[in-house]
């Protein structure tokens, strides 16, 4: 470092000599520096104030040798070498930095305090500006997510009406107990008390609380259809049940109990796979994990109409998880209602007659395990009544079905009451199938209406050497020379064995499957197209069917071959042929109306909540059977004879029937397997000249058709004489209002809300206590 002019802080521009330059390295390096900070300079004042001067002086003092105070630091000014050690150091400090002990100036210090406070306040303002002006959006989002919950409000479901506006499936308002998840987590004893009151196991409540099926923002329902007494108890002991509230929910209600249970179907919580399918299929319908969905019957078929549109509600939820208010949202729209072709009185008659007959048969010693009945309007395909036995009450589904209840309606020992045998039960048709055989024989000109066959009581396949070669009449009768009408009336099996054999022998002329082709035209072996889900098609025996069955299950069907005996058997409805009651009714409807096959239709119209007809369901033609009078008349005479001719199979059953009031025709069917009589059919239609009704009834394991099905059909026709089916009436908007309907999921007001209020107050108090310990 060279001598010269330097700028020394606090002293201005100075000329320094060599010694000064050497000694002056670093102002604070040692106490011996020549360049002290001027006492009143700003830097000195800051250091002084912060106490740095004092600390440095202390350090400097310690670093130097205290036995020789002042030496090497500022020898010229070390005036009092005799001062004690500490004092010497303090003096040193004051030598270097002036006098830190200078008496304090309170006003100046007050000023500094004020400046500190001013700085602190400015900091607050800056921070506020950041939070409230610069970063405002992120915090608004937090607050929104805190307090506002978007919740779906399920709409009231559309109503299902019978054709005369009777409500078959309506909505009713039920109370359900819900538990807030946060409360259940913090105070599990609530569940124990609730379990004791409601009888719902704690484990079940816990599994529901943990279930993803329920919205995380809504209280979880733990008990549905809570009794009024329990609700009152909860209201009165609200303080014992924090987080528990009673919500009002619309649920399905069935005013006529089990009536038309299978037709109506049921509603149950949506499953994961269904939810995915529904959301994919119809994203606009607002399905969520807590949705209910129609599962079977009309509920399933017309789900998209019945469902309605869920509303969206913005719930204000407070810190305790209680809903304290609702703000604007969209209100739910009730689903469209469905008006059925079903006639309530006829339906009830069919059900009671069928179950009564089955009870009678069982008394007589028949197993009569199950049965089914269908009443159709042959002119339109409208299904006027349809039942399946055994049945059940669909209200078991309301509010969640229990395991035991589900077992009860699906167990084999109970006869699987859940199964709709009218559309999904298939039975061997027996002689009822002669409808197809006779039509085929006449329309293919295998025989003429005047063709005569000599019935000896049995039929032997010519040239037969192995297996079953001789076929007997079912009742063992021998009618001698008969023609087609009597063969139908008396259900003469030999006559039809012969037809089957003739078709087989002349298969070069008529093809391999003449009867099958005609059966197909009548709709046998195919879905009828009824507007119900879960329909099971029957099957018509044929060489192709045998092959297919063998291929699918060789153990059960060892022989894929087709033999003359098979042709003989299928001609009178035995063998592998299976027919469902709705197929049977539809086939005879086709014959009755002169050859037009309509799809059976349960629903007549869809009506909006405003009472406007959204859709009127028109008759749907599925196919035709060519039935000129040359074919239809002899067959009709045969069907009439079954009831009126003393030789007719159902003559005895219909003895005394007021024939003139409603002339009818019909056909029995008795399926046999060996000597076991399986399905007992009777299908009738009337009035004969202009058929308005087709009634088909089958009872399983109930003897001859005349014995099992026919009495029910007779009772139905007798009912119809007194109660002819009227036209469909469309219910008005006022009829459609759900009584006392309130949107679901919102806690009811009044005393019950006290429970949620209480829990709120409770937490409030607890937090207040927390504050006082803070």
């Amino acid at each position, binding site marked *: 470092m060279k001598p010269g002019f330097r700028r020394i802080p606090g002293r201005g521009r100075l000329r320094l000599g060599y010694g000064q330059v050497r000694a002056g390295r670093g102002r604070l390096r040692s106490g011996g520096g020549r360049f002290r900070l001027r006492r009143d300079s700003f830097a000195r004042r800051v250091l002084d104030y*912060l106490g740095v001067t004092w600390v440095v002086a202390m350090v400097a003092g310690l670093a130097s040798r205290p036995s020789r105070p002042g030496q090497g630091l500022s020898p010229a000014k070390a005036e009092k070498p005799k001062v004690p050690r500490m004092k010497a150091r303090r003096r040193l400090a004051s030598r270097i930095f002036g006098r830190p002990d200078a008496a304090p100036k309170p006003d100046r210090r*007050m000023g500094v*305090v004020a400046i500190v*406070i001013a700085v602190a306040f400015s900091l607050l303002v800056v921070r506020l500006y950041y939070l409230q002006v610069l970063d405002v959006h992120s915090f608004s989002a937090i607050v929104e997510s805190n307090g506002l919950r978007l919740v779906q409000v399920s709409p009231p479901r559309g109503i299902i009406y019978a054709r005369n506006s009777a409500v078959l499936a309506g909505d009713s308002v039920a109370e359900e107990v819900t538990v807030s998840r946060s409360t259940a987590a913090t105070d599990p004893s609530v569940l124990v008390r609730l379990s004791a009151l409601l009888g719902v196991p704690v484990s079940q409540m816990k599994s529901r609380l943990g279930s993803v099926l329920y919205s995380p923002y809504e209280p979880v329902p733990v008990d549905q259809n809570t009794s009024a007494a329990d609700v009152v108890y909860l209201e009165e002991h609200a303080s014992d049940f924090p987080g528990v509230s009673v919500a009002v929910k619309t649920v399905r209600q069935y005013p006529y109990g089990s009536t038309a249970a299978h037709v109506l179907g049921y509603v149950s919580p949506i499953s994961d796979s269904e939810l995915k399918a529904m959301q994919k299929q119809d994203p606009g319908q607002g399905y969520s994990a807590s949705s209910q969905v129609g599962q079977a019957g009309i509920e399933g078929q017309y789900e998209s109409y019945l469902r309605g549109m869920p509303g969206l509600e913005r719930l204000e939820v407070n810190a305790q998880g209680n809903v304290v208010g609702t703000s604007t949202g969209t209100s739910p729209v009730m689903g469209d209602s469905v008006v059925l072709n079903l006639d309530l009185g006829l339906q009830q008659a069919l059900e009671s007659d069928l179950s009564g007959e089955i009870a009678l048969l069982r008394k007589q010693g028949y197993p009569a395990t199950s049965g089914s009945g269908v009443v159709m309007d042959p002119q339109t395909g409208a299904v006027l009544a349809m039942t399946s036995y055994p049945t059940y009450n669909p209200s078991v589904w309301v509010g969640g079905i229990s395991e035991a209840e589900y077992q009860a309606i699906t167990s084999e020992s109970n006869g699987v009451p859940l199964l709709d045998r009218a559309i999904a039960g298939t039975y061997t048709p027996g002689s009822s199938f002669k409808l197809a055989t006779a039509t085929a024989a006449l329309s293919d000109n295998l025989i003429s209406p005047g063709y005569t066959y000599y019935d000896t009581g049995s039929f032997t396949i010519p040239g037969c050497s192995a297996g079953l070669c001789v076929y007997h009449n079912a009742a063992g009768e021998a009618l001698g020379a008969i023609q087609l009408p009597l063969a139908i009336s008396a259900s003469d099996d030999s006559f039809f064995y012969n037809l089957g054999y003739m078709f087989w022998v002349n298969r070069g002329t008529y093809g391999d499957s003449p009867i099958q082709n005609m059966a197909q035209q009548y709709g046998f072996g195919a879905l009828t197209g009824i507007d119900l889900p879960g329909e099971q098609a029957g099957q018509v025996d044929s060489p192709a069917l045998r092959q297919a069955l063998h291929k699918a299950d060789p153990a059960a069907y060892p022989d894929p071959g087709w033999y003359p005996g098979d042709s003989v058997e299928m001609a009178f409805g035995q063998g592998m042929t299976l027919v469902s009651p709705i197929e049977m009714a539809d086939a005879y409807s086709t014959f009755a109306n002169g050859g037009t096959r309509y799809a059976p239709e349960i629903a007549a119209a869809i009506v909006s909540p405003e009472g406007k007809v959204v859709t009127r369901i028109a008759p749907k033609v599925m196919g035709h059977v060519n039935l000129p009078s040359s074919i239809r008349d002899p067959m009709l005479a045969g069907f009439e004879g079954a009831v009126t001719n003393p030789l007719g199979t159902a003559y005895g059953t219909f003895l005394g029937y007021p024939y003139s009031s409603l002339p009818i025709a019909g056909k029995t069917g008795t399926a046999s397997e060996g000597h076991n009589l399986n399905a007992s059919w009777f299908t009738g239609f009337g009035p004969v000249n202009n058929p308005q009704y087709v009634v088909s009834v089958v009872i399983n394991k109930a003897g001859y058709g005349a014995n099992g099905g026919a009495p029910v059909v007779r009772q139905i026709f007798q009912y119809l004489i007194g109660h002819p089916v009227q036209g469909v009436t469309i219910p008005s908007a006022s009829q459609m209002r759900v009584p006392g309907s309130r949107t679901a999921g919102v806690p009811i007001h009044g005393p019950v809300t006290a429970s949620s209020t209480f829990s709120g107050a409770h937490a409030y108090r607890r937090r207040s206590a927390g504050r006082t310990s803070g």
Partner: protein
Amino acid sequence: MTIADYAARFRPQGAGMTAAPVATGTRRGAVATDPLLVASALALAAVGVVAVYASTRQQLMLQGIDPHYLMKHQIEYAIVGTVVMAVMARIDYHLLENVSWIVYGLLLASLLATFVIGSQALGAVRWIQFGPVQVQPSAFGAVLLTVVIAAYCSRTSQIGGRQYLTWKDLGVILLVSLIPILLVIKQPDLGSGMVMLVVLLVMLVVGGLPNRYTVLLVIAGALAAFAAIKLGLLHHYQLQRLTSFVGSSKSSSAAYNAQQSKAAIGSGGLFGTGLFHGMQVNLAYLPEAQTDFIFSVIGEELGFIGAVVVLGLSGIVVWRMARIARAARDLLGKVLVAGCIALVGFSVFENAGMAVGIMPVAGIPLPFVSYGGSALVAFFLAVGIALSVRARTGRLPRV
């Protein structure tokens, strides 16, 4: 100096020190006062009444109680506070010096009483019941401590006409003031204890503590706090609150409270959601909305503007008191008012700072605004002391 000499500094020194009120020039007989200071304090109290109503009406309604219930109480407290302020303004502050040992005894006795009552009630108690009135001694701790320390500082030795504190003075003051402070912290009321410590520090500085002692004191305080934490003298939740503003654990309730408070203030925006329309407040997401987090209520419902107005009014209170302190005729007056300034200033900074997330969560009231009778009266008492000093001071300098 002997112990007796130090003890003498707490004793009354006769009536010679008292001073007559200074009459203002305009009105004869009228005592010089500070209308802006009084107006600001009253305005803050008015804001507080509204804010208390805004933050409690929803919860009170839910409980089926009159939603005005707490607001009415707050109005009563404000009236009592105003009367206390007016009376204090009339009293010569030198009288406080004379009765400082009585004040100190009262403070200690009341704090100890809470422990006795608390042990009988098998739980922490901060309140003493006087007939229908509940008093929270810790709320008065800071302002009473101000009187005691100021009285001592006013009697210290002088250098060149200026008074200063020796290290022995420092020791005595610390000994005297740490007893109530520790009692308050032990109560447990960490927030009030913190305020008292800050008040003590500021008063020592203004009272003439040499800088090096100040530095040593701060270092020693930091070491003591560190030791207290290490030795587990603080409750776990207290630590959690103190550190929550650093943003460490999101799960703790303190962090949750701080987060909800920030969210409330942040969602207020420039103009707020409107009075009574704060969702955080009404849905009870804001904890202790009427006391600790009342600043958040103002921030949410009245926005940046409202919050800055409250800070501004508090700033005016501090400024006017600082002005009085500087003009005070003697060190007693200066130190007294300095303590009051520290009380109000630090309370505002800590309370609002906690609400905006730059200070640790410690339950102390926002001066004049938070719900609570004892605190409100104590703050008015502090203003009253400042007014008493003002009344006995000549013309104030133009600041």
